[in-house]
Each structure stands twice: as structure tokens, then as C-alpha cells.
């Protein structure tokens, strides 16, 4: 199995993860922001978002397969749904809890509308949004693994499935180790930088 299968599977999985997670961020943050700021959005989507986020995203796979067939699109739908909703919920919470005086101060300086949101509200909510982004990342990884396990698609999930078919526990455990390493590495590469910047700026004690 050291013939390049693992690196290839890993590359496929990581590529999917990055695309799906990117889309999830692009959906989750604006969705959470509008939930926090628009009464209409809150009433229209609030219950749906909370309700849907309790559905394990893999439950969407059958529907996705019916819609899109056994394609990249189907598996991305699962990843995006899995990650976007927790990101939206965390974003909504942290935007809603930005200190009112911060936004009022910005308004007295002449900021309003989109500019207020982009230059003041979102930066102020960043610590909370980052928390949501981390949870979203792990959700994306989990959803992707489940999706890859369930249909032949390349990627680490399929490698796990192969290991099961061959009764090769060493392969299965090896892939699990790779997944753990992937999670840990993404933490170091993606989030620790932001964590440190936030700790320095907001004055959070680093452990």
C-alpha cells in the first residue's frame, strides 16, 4: 500500500476539505451575520438553521446522491451543510454579543451599513467567529469522512473502506492516524496564528 495510494487519497481528501470548508465559510459567516442583524432573516431562517444544525450532515447524502449522482457535488453538499451551520450559529452569537458601545462609537464616527459591519462589527466578533470556524472545520472533516466511507470516491474514507474489505486493520488504523495528524496539522497551520493574534490583542492569557 505504500505505492502512492495514501498520498493520493490524502491529496483528494484535503482538496475536498479546502473547497467545502471555504464554501461553508462563505455561506456561514454572512448567514450568521444576517441572523444576528435582521429580524426578517431571524424569523425566516433562525429556527431552520438551529433545527438543521442538529441533523448530522451525512443524513443529506442520500438526497445529495439522488440530486447529483455519485459526484463531487454530492459529497461537497454534505461537507458544506455540515460545516456552514455551526459556523452560522457561532457567528450569529458573537455578532449579537459585540459590546453596544463599540458599535455606537463607530457610528458617531460616521460608519454605517456595510462599512460598519466590515470594519467594526465583524472584527469585534472575530474571537467568537474563530471558535465557530474551528468547530466548522472539524465538522467538515467528519462529514467528509462519512461521505467518503459511504461511496467509492477516492480519498481517505475510501481507503478505510478498502481496509475493511480486506480485513486489514493495520491499514484502517494507519488511515485513522493520518486523519488525526490532518486535524492536528490544520490546527497548527490554520488556527494557531489567529489564536495567538487574538490572545495578544484581546489580552487573553495563553496557556
Amino acid at each position, binding site marked *: 500500500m505504500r505505492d502512492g495510494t495514501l498520498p493520493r487519497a490524502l491529496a483528494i481528501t484535503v482538496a475536498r476539505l479546502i473547497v467545502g470548508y471555504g464554501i461553508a465559510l462563505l455561506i456561514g459567516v454572512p448567514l450568521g451575520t444576517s441572523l444576528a442583524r435582521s429580524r426578517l432573516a431571524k424569523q425566516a431562517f433562525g429556527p431552520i438553521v438551529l433545527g438543521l444544525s442538529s441533523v448530522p450532515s451525512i443524513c443529506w447524502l442520500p438526497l445529495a446522491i439522488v440530486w447529483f449522482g455519485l459526484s463531487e457535488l454530492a459529497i461537497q453538499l454534505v461537507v458544506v451543510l455540515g460545516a456552514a451551520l455551526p459556523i452560522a450559529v457561532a457567528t450569529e452569537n458573537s455578532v449579537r454579543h459585540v459590546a453596544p458601545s463599540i458599535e*455606537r462609537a463607530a457610528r*458617531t464616527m*460616521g460608519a*454605517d451599513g456595510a462599512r460598519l459591519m466590515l*470594519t467594526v462589527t465583524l472584527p469585534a466578533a472575530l474571537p467568537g467567529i474563530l471558535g465557530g470556524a474551528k468547530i466548522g472545520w472539524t465538522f467538515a472533516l467528519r462529514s467528509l469522512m462519512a461521505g467518503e466511507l459511504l461511496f467509492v470516491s477516492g480519498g481517505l474514507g475510501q481507503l478505510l473502506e478498502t481496509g475493511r474489505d480486506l480485513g486489514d486493520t493495520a491499514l484502517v488504523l494507519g488511515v485513522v492516524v493520518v486523519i488525526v495528524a490532518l486535524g492536528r496539522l490544520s490546527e497548527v497551520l490554520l488556527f*494557531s496564528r489567529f489564536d*495567538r493574534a487574538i490572545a495578544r490583542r484581546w489580552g487573553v492569557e495563553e496557556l
Partner: protein
Amino acid sequence: MFTFAKAWVEERGVSLRAVTSSIRPPPPSSIPPSRSGASVALEDVSLSVTTEAGAVEILREATLSVAAGEFVCLLGPSGSGKSTILNLIAGLSRPTSGRVRYGDGGVTRPGPDRAVVFQDAALFPWLTLRANIEFPLKLQHWPADARRARSEELLRLVHLWRFQERFPHELSGGMRQRGAIARALATDPAVLLMDEPFAALDSQTREILQGEVERIWSATRKTVIFVTHNVREAVRLGDRIVLMGTRPGRVLHEEFVDLPRPRSSNDARVATLATGIARRIASEVEKVAREEADDAWVAPGDHRPGDPRRQLGRGI
């Protein structure tokens, strides 16, 4: 590898800071030429908000006129609508009825010509002190070098030049408040609205900052409307004190403070005047306390606790 990178960053951070603080600040320049104050007036302004409990009247028919360049203190217990008046002038809220006038026109929305200093400073935690001061200028599309020159000027004005690269959480409460004042002055507003800016500070720091506000006001002649519940602070700073009453918030009485400047809180004349005003508002405060405490309220003078040391052990 990462610990190495971290150590490198920390080392660089520390050494940068060491360099900044070892350079002597440039000599304090005189206060920059600026836009002087504008007049502000409230005409029969009322404000009610609807809550779950029904409509609550926050301010009733407040009439107040502040001349250009005047220093007016709004003084009253909590719930008397002091901060509401500030918000109305800032344009952060709209009156239910009546008009808020500013200069030649009316107030319709917030603008950088009416700056506010909040009680909690409200500096942006993700920006350094300098970036905080430059933020309103950025909103006005000032070019970078002009912003830098302006923030430099203001940092020296409030004596925070050495701390320009610090984040707000690395500053003391008094420094944060001075930073907020500098940020408010950045766009050269005609009116400076201060909402209990020193309420959370210790008395020594407060005294120093009161002196700085007086100095800045004397030099720039901006219109200052200063909200406080501290009688002595109002007497120490204001040309005129507007006493506010509660339930609903309204203007009760105005008093001119005709004392020479610069003043001091410990001045006997300030103290005498403050005592007189405090007596006047005591009845208002009592009214609030009575309402909030319901039956538990004991009017002052009804009880005589005496020396607590003598009571030790009594009634065991």
C-alpha cells in the same frame, strides 16, 4: 520549529517595544488649530420607548440650549435621561417629539462633527492605540501620512505618545479614557459629548483627567456637554450645570458656575457650591431609591447606627 518562530516573534515584539519607549517623545507642540464649537439646542424634546411592559417615558419635554464653546454639565441620578440627551445630540437616537438643533440645522444622524466619549472608552480591542485614533480619519478617507501626522499630534496632546503601539487591554483605565478623548478629537468635532467618562476611574486619575479636559477645552473652545452623576465633578468642570430629574427624565434647574479657571475639586468654593447642589438633588435621588427599594427603603435620619465598634457583640 514553531516554538522557535514564536520565540522569534516574541523577541522582536519585546525589542520593538523597548526601542519605542527608549526614544524620547518629541516636545509637546501647542494644541493644533481647530474648528471651534457649535451651538446645540433641544426644543421640547420627548422620548418614549415601547417595551414589553408598555410605553416608558424616558425624557419629557426637555428644553436646553448650549452656546457655542460652552462647557455644560448634565447632572442627575441614573434614569434622569442625561445619557439620552447625549444620544439625541449625537444622532444615535431620534426624539419621539420635539426638535434637536445643532448649529444652523437639525440633527438627523450621527456624524464625526459630534464626537462621543463613552464611559467604557469603547476603544477597539483589535487595534493599537494609534490605529484607534486614526480609525475615524480612515473613515473620512484621509491619506496615510496625514493620518499619521494627526495621530502623532493627538497622542502628544493626551500624553500617550509612548504607548501608541499598545493594544487597549495593555493600557490602564485612565490611559484608555485619554485615548478615547484623543480619538474623539481626531476628526476635529465642533461638539464633544462625554458620557460619564471618568465614572470608573479612581479619584486621583479622575482629578488629572478633569484637568486635561479643562485644558483641552480652554485651548480648542469646542462645545462640551459632559454627563456626570458626580456633583463635584460637574462644579469643577462646567460653565453651567443642568440638573436633571427622574421618572420621567426632565430638566429641573440650571445653575451657572462663576468660578475662575483652572479649578480644583479641592477648592473650598467648588466644595461649597457642590454641597448646595447636592442638597438640591438629594430629594430626587431619594425618590428613585424609594421606588427601587419598595418597602425596604429607610429614609435618611430614621436610623442612628452610631459607632459600629460599640455595637460589637450586642444582642448575641
